[in-house]
């Protein structure tokens, strides 16, 4: 498949990952064992004390105390190339992905120019061939992302897009969304919706509530999101096509999706780590690093997001990695750009949920790997023998301070800077090749 950005393997060698806790929910596996990689593919998994008899030339990596999971897939990132390479490039963004434990990322089309064509998709994939993670381009629903006419899905599919979205903006015109869903079906492409009722969010800078009043900032009410999700669900249902709702942040959004799933709708949804880690209190005194769209919400919304992650309403955790430079962030709050980087903090923030008992480790792998792979229809998400050796090794006990000098992404816009974090990807393998290692 042409979306396979990196070559299948340059690696003829074999490698065995020893003594790690292998967590592979697709195969019902959670236990200490060994995992053999041969020629870029998973060759065998040894569990229950089974010891392989291996020749000496096989590389041995001891991973006692660490977790071995399918390569993480972030289904929502902004790599900024082409057009805003001063914020991030495909090279720097995929390096940040590898550092955060991701072996694949789906990049949103709101680049400059917008990815609405064969040529831009091809350019992205050509750049990605040298990258540190697989890149799955998302094409735009509408030409130029302008919400007026359909983009060329057939051509983009041929070039390698895996999904369609006008992310950054909603498709305001319901008829266009309907046509997009119908036409996407011809190419078996998923539509990802950025759900926002613009009339309600216009000029808003943060969540509407006490904190927006305290700071004198225009608020964005929760219903700006949920009203549009309701519309999106209705339109998708009418077409009988699946729809994926991006970055949900409110209790009402969770309950709408829960209800739609109960009715049998083909809806899937993602949230981002900041929506279960922070509330609008994080804006503090106009800290633009806590500004994103949708905005950080209330403690009650955070609770609902956690419930949705736990009960299966929310299918995936995606970072919405949105690099911005100081030019966009070091300005008056209402003028500051929306978005934060997220690739390098997703694992420890998600592990906070584990430590608090909100989800277990199998569910974490579903949210960060298995489900994104299935939703996007891309390889990975499992450790099944015969599949590509995209593997992430996590040290669940590694404690570190997320300091600016450690950030791999080209941009540093994160509200988690200087946080004490626990749990980190220490080894990332793409097709058996090491793309990131913190092992000594």
């Amino acid at each position: 498949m042409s979306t396979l950005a990196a070559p299948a393997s340059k690696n003829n060698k074999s490698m065995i990952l020893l003594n790690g806790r292998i967590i592979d929910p697709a195969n019902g596996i959670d236990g200490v064992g060994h995992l053999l990689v041969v020629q870029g593919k998973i060759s065998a998994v040894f569990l229950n004390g089974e010891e392989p008899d291996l020749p000496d030339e096989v590389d041995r990596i001891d991973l006692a105390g660490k977790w071995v999971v399918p390569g993480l897939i972030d289904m929502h990132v902004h790599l900024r190339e082409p057009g805003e390479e001063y914020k991030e490039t495909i090279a720097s963004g995929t390096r940040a992905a590898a550092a955060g434990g991701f072996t694949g990322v789906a990049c949103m089309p709101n680049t400059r120019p917008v990815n609405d064509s064969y040529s831009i998709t091809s350019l992205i994939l050509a750049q990605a061939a040298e990258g540190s993670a697989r890149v799955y381009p998302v094409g735009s629903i509408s030409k130029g992302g302008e919400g007026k006419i359909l983009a060329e899905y057939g051509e983009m599919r041929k070039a390698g897009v895996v999904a369609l979205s006008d992310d950054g903006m909603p498709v305001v015109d319901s008829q266009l969304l309907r046509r997009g869903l119908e036409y996407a079906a011809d190419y078996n492409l998923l539509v990802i919706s950025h759900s926002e009722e613009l009339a309600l969010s216009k000029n808003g800078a943060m969540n509407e509530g006490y904190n927006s009043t305290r700071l004198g900032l225009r608020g964005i009410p929760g219903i700006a999101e949920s009203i549009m999700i309701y519309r999106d669900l209705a339109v998708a249902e009418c077409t009988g096509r699946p729809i994926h709702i991006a970055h949900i942040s409110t209790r009402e959004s969770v309950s709408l999706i829960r209800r739609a799933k109960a009715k049998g709708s083909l809806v899937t949804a993602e949230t981002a780590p900041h929506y279960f880690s922070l509330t609008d209190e994080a804006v503090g005194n106009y800290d633009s690093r806590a500004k994103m769209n949708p905005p950080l919400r209330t403690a009650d919304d955070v609770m609902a997001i956690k419930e949705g992650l736990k009960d299966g309403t929310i299918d995936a955790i995606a970072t919405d990695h949105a690099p911005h430079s100081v030019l966009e962030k070091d300005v008056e709050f209402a003028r500051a750009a929306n978005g934060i980087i997220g690739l390098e903090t997703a694992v420890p923030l998600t592990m906070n949920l584990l430590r608090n008992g909100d989800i277990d480790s199998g569910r974490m792998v579903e949210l960060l790997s298995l489900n994104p792979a299935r939703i996007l229809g891309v390889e990975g998400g499992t450790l099944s023998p015969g599949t590509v050796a995209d593997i992430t090794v996590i040290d669940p006990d590694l404690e570190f301070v997320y300091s600016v000098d450690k950030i791999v992404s080209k941009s540093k816009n994160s509200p988690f800077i200087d946080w004490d974090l626990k749990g980190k990807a220490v080894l990332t393998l793409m097709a058996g090749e090491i793309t990131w290692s913190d092992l000594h």
Partner: protein
Amino acid sequence: METGYHFSHKHILSLEDLSSADISFILQTADSFKEISTRSIKKVPTLRGKTVINLFFEPSTRTRLSFEIAAKRMSADTFNIASSTSSTTKGETLVDTALNLMAMNPDIIIIRHSFSGAAQLLTEHIETSVINAGDGTHEHPSQGLLDLMTVMEKKGRIEGLKVAIIGDIAHSRVAHSNIIGFTKMGASVCVAGPGTMMPPAVEKLGATRCNSVHEAVADADVVMALRIQKERQDDSLIPSLREYAKYFGINRSVIDLAKKDVLIMHPGPLNRGVEIDSEIADDPRSVILDQVTNGVAIRMALLYLLMGGD
């Protein structure tokens, strides 16, 4: 002042940042400076050699002049910079402007800006003391202080008073500062206005949200009308100034609901016949011009205290 008190603020960004002890101290200091403005030679040498920059990104006559007069009566050198916030696409950022000003070693920068948090942003990048002269729809602390001073002067106390603030609470930095200031000093603040102009969770700021102007004004010791900005009509917050005046304006029949010795206040500039009837603005109980007079004293006090006077 009680023993142990020390004014320790480097900036004046909001009344939220100030304690009731800070506010009392500022009011006392301002009271002692008020006399200077009544002398025939209205100048003291206190801030001689200090440089004060008025950095105004929004049109303002009264506030800018008030700060300038305050600084000059204290013998500081003042400089005015008027700039348009809409020109930043071709111009430099606020942070760069501030860094350039700081390079000229001023002692105090007074900033007015149409974006909330602009004064705070300045303090994160420069060493100079900053006074917020109004930032977007956030706060206008010197206005809040001069309003407190005026009420204190006329009523002898703040504690226990009922203060009604009427109008566009959501978009008024004056209302915001006053809600915080008056509640901190022990008054009860009631707000009323069109539903479109009520901020979310205003109660959490300390105000009581009333369902009608009548309810807010009933038995009030202070009635403050806020200026209605004409562009709010375009925002669809009110259908017309005419209807606003009829249902939310302060007129004779409304003011009659308040205490007989009510103080009538307005931060100016007035839209006579819109938020306040002409005869009410000119009523003997109106202290609108006292507010302006006290503004100079409050700003003298703020400049003095930030420069280390104590």
